């Protein structure tokens, strides 16, 4: 288990690798970039990376979506055992519910951030963070 980084094919972990890369790119943009809109873009990229990470944590190989659709439960009396059997092949629904909430919250924060950007532009006529610094950063 200790040397998983080396002996497993990287394809298995492509989702984790992608999400970590996206998180890093987002963090970089948010920390280094000087344009206010770029900083907000960085935040939304970071958000996307974390959402991908959460969903991939909940993934089950060859699993189905966590929906008991009519096609799935067809010709099957809905006893507790049948439900249990079906549910074993389903991906984890909890991270999906969390990501649903996180996406909406992230959108709210982005909207507030952008309205602040508009306010700042109205006062300063620039988006460059170096020229806006009135307060100590």
């Amino acid at each position, binding site marked *: 288990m200790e040397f998983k980084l080396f002996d497993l094919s990287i394809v298995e972990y492509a989702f984790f690798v992608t999400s970590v890369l996206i998180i890093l790119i987002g963090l970089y943009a948010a920390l280094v970039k000087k344009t206010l809109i770029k900083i907000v873009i960085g935040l939304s990229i*970071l958000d996307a990376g974390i959402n991908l990470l*959460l969903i991939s944590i909940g993934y089950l190989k060859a699993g189905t979506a966590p929906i008991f659709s009519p096609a799935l439960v067809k010709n099957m009396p809905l006893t507790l055992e049948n439900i249990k059997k079906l549910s074993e092949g389903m991906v984890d629904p909890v991270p999906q519910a969390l990501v649903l*909430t996180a996406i909406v919250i992230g959108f709210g924060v982005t909207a*507030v*951030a952008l309205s602040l950007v508009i306010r700042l532009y109205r*006062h300063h006529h620039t988006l460059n963070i170096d020229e*806006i610094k009135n307060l100590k950063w």
Partner: protein
Amino acid sequence: MVGSPVLFIAIPLLAAFLIPLLGFVWKESVRILPGLVLLYLLYLSLTLMEQVVHTGTIVEVIAGWAPPWGINLVFSPLTGLLTTLMILMGFIIWIYSYRFKNIDFQEAVKYFILLLMLITGSVGIVLTGDIFNQFVFIEITSISAYALTAFYKGRDSAEASFKYLMIGSLSSMFLLLAIALIYSQLGTLNMADIAAKAHLMKPEFKILALIFFITGLGIEAEIFPLNGWAPDAYAQAPGPIGAAFSGIVVKAGVYAMIRVMFTLFDVAGTHQFLIVIGIITLIIAEMSAVRQEHLKRMLAYSSIGQMGLVIVAFGIGTEEGVFAALFLMLNHAIIKSLLFLSGSYLVYHSTGKYISEVDGIARNLPITSFLFALGSIAIVGMPPFAGFWSKWSMLTAAAHSNLILIIGLVLSVSLIELVYYFRVLNRIYFFPKKKEVVVKKPTINALLAMGLLGLLILIIGFYPDSVTGYLHAASQSLLDKGKYIHDVLSTGQLLLP
């Protein structure tokens, strides 16, 4: 049963949704409704608190699903104490801002919605027993806080707010990462369940999650590297909002951090870490406070310093230490709110809000100046006011744990505080007035709010026994991790579907 803890969240939300509708019918109701809600909740929290201290923790289950499956609210002596404190402060701040000057109706609607949600979010952070739910409440609190920081239309307020938003949303991302890591290991989000299963986590996950939690929650708790937003936000926000930050939001942040460190994970060395980070925060903040020319910034740095002191006290880790920390939090909420509320009237007439502009203002504003002086003396820790007892309990706690360094630190910090608060008082009372300034006389409701706070300081100062019983119960409930887990998870046995 008088009411359930869920009302602390449900009723303010209902009121917040109702306010825009009521505004169409009767404009004054927009200002009155939040006060009525807070008054009712204050009554509720006081009665529940009385009940909890005698009969034990109330665990409120939501949607009929027992923990760990459903979300639950925990009203223990600790969370109850903080809830009561927050709602009391919220009510006083509402009284103060009831006749908020020169804003029109549209702005008043937004102000009161945001203020109510700031209080509700903080109460939710404290009451909830589920980490993701806590994240949602943190977002509610932060969005209200960003908007309230930018409430005045000056250009610096937008900048302070943007800075706050940047740091805040980065940390909430870390919080989400921590939640993801915990979920990937334990498959649960309930705090008690996590605490019970924490030994199953791989150590790397535990440490990384703890680091993410500290970064995520440290921003609201104003610990050292993450408190860059605080002085600007305090200085630019309207006066009552500064009081709300230091009296309500910070308390919620500290609570969340302490809950994670004391209950969720038992990693060795957290106490030492708390002491170190608290001392760094304390020293840097107090040093900056001495150098400030700006009154509200000085108060903000003083507030950060006090939070550092609270964290050091938690770091002592004994029951006495936790008791001292909670006592400090209680006193700090009351006293610092009084300082913010009265201080914003002292510098109301000036544009720069500098300390040098309060010269001789005591002749114009005798009552406000007197209350400011009362607050300053109390926060420095002079007997017989409220601040003395909390600092005294901290000293005894440190002495019993043989932490001589902390005793020296507390004493020297008190000395520094003495220096910079008396510098202001000296100017207020003994400096000749430079020129005639048009001062703003405090309105009657502002005086009422400040008077109430002053009265609380005197009551706690002369009869500390009136609160110590609750504080002891609260500190025992924080340290008794097993009881917390048992209380929450045993609710499941009763309701198991």
